[in-house]
């Protein structure tokens, strides 16, 4: 205890040096944490953008539907399936869809479209297919992708004919009113989509309580694998295709892997730079005091005591600095966690979103930190400062008092 007290007092014998060291450590930890939070933001942002609107975390299809998307490969009793899936505690939302290729026509010119039958309420929200302000789609009212509407020269209020093939092979055709034009994050939907109420799509395409796809969002994206495995084991889903988004979109996963690897590499560089700064500060602080240690040795202090004192000083310095840095990092993240960081303003570009791989990527990201990040960063810095002081401390232990005093 005395050692620690002496160490603490020693630290403040030279307030400027200690304050400098604390600032260096604090800034390093703060920046590492801020960067770590951005890394999480990018990861979450990519997963959310990819899975949010259309893909979902887990999808269920009838066997072989993904192969040929045949209209008659449907999931029967879709309502009961959704209810059974919703009973899983980790499932956040479940919704059924109908996908039907069709022709849409304003006059006599047909256009290839994809009719998507959806549950309006369950497809609405942030990072979902439909924005909360999208018009309602009851009965014969449909939404149309804006790009498709431009191609067709259709506008809200227009009447369109939709012609396709029913699940029983029969001809499906009816007239619909365009309730509104929508701009979704999915290019495919914007260019080809006609969004219809699920029940109406089932009626048009001669389907009972059937669907082509059930989309599940897990409460926690990190637990998707477990959720998918549990759902696949449900007896009611026997014979169906239950796949998580990583298996549905392997190319997205590899893209995500590349991006995360690049960020991770930078994180390593940032951390190494921070650690070097801490180590340098500690080394200099110890070398500077060679004369002082020589004096203590000459007074008869045992070398082990001196070593213990130096290490205690370092750890105290590291811990206080890391705590300050953690506070800084947490403050930075807390300030941006809810509103997000808008990369569009940061890069000075006018667009608020970019289009890539058929998805519109908003440029706003939401930094977040996990306890493991904090513990990791603080722990690593304390360890670094301890190791950085150990070498000069051991050197001090072997010091000749007379020579040290003269240095």
């Amino acid at each position, binding site marked *: 205890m005395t050692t620690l007290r002496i160490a603490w007092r020693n630290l403040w014998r030279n307030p400027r040096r200690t304050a400098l060291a604390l600032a260096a450590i604090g800034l390093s930890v703060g920046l590492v944490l801020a960067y770590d939070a951005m890394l999480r933001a990018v990861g979450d942002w990519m997963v959310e953008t990819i899975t949010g609107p259309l893909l979902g975390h887990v999808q269920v299809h009838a066997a072989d539907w993904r192969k040929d998307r045949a209209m*008659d490969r449907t999931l029967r009793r879709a309502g009961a399936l959704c209810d059974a899936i919703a009973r899983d505690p980790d499932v956040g939302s479940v919704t059924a869809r109908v996908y039907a290729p069709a022709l849409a026509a304003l006059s*006599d*010119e*047909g256009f290839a479209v994809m009719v998507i039958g959806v549950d309006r309420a369950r497809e609405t929200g942030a990072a979902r297919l439909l924005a909360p302000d999208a018009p309602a789609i009851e009965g014969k009212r449909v939404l149309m992708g804006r790009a498709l509407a431009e191609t067709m020269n259709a506008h809200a209020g227009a009447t369109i*004919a939709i*012609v396709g093939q029913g699940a029983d092979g*029969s001809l499906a055709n009816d007239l619909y009113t365009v309730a509104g034009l929508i701009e979704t994050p999915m290019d495919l939907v914007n260019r080809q989509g006609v969004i219809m109420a699920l029940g109406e799509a089932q009626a048009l395409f001669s389907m009972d309580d059937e669907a082509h796809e059930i989309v599940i969002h897990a409460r926690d994206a990190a637990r998707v694998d477990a959720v998918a495995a549990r759902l696949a084991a449900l007896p009611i889903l026997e014979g169906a295709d239950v796949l998580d988004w990583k298996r549905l979109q392997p190319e997205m996963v590899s893209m995500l892997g590349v991006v995360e690897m690049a960020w991770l590499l930078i994180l390593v560089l940032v951390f190494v730079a921070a650690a070097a700064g801490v180590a340098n500060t500690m080394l200099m602080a110890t070398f500077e005091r060679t004369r002082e240690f020589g004096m203590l040795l000459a007074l008869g202090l045992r070398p082990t005591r001196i070593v213990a004192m130096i290490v205690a000083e370092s750890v105290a310095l590291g811990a206080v600095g890391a705590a300050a840095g953690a506070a800084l990092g947490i403050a930075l993240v807390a300030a941006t966690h809810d509103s997000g960081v808008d990369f569009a303003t940061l890069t000075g570009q006018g667009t608020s979103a970019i289009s890539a791989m058929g998805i519109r990527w908003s440029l706003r990201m939401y930094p977040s930190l996990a306890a493991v990040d904090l513990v990791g960063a603080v722990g690593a810095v304390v360890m670094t400062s301890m190791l950085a002081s150990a070498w000069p401390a051991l050197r001090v232990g072997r010091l000749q008092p007379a020579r040290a005093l003269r240095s």
Partner: protein
Amino acid sequence: MMWCRPLAVVALAIIGMASIPPVPPAPDVDALLRHLDDLYRSKSSIARIEIQVINPRTTRSLRLKAWTRGEEHSLIVIEAPPREAGTATLRVEDNLWNYLPRIARTIRVPPSAMLGSWMGTDFTNDDLVHESSMRRDFASRVDRRSDAPAGWWLRLDVKPDIVGRWARIDVLVSDDDLPVEERFYDRKGRLARTMTFDEVRPLGGRRMPVHLTLVPADVDGQRTEMRYLEAQFDVALPEDTFSLSRLEQNR
């Protein structure tokens, strides 16, 4: 017995030759293809056809009446089942329109939907439009002799500057100049579908296979069968048969 041997050899040779039927001279491919094109269409035709779409899960039947003139005009009206009755398809050159009586609309099929199924069958819209372009778009030659049935395999390779679905079509024509089988290969050289022709009988004053089966190669248990119930050829058709106005009031 030595004197017997040459005689035996000669005898064997004669027997051997007799057992191989004389190989007919290779046909004039172009004339043969024109004949095949003509077989089901002639200058003009009216036919009643039954179509069955069969897959492992369901079977669906359609009955339709079809009018054709030359190679570029056709009108198909569905007569049964009642739910689809009156639905009609008009083809004039490269254009295809569907008339839908339920919503009283005529819709032109866009190029992007040409490869889509026609009325839920294994035929595509493109098949209706390009059924007559074989001789124009493909370089044809006699490929090899077929023994059972006796006939010739013709091979059609797409001309280099043509953009289409098929890279190659093999056609088996029997010695009585009737189609037996057609094999369609896609742009990657894979067999994509097979069409077989059987049940040869007199119809509309000519002998022709009245039963056609289209089997896509990639879907197990899936096929579309087409049976000619009645046919008349080279009949006079009113000038406006193949017009949009006729399409919408043809019953």
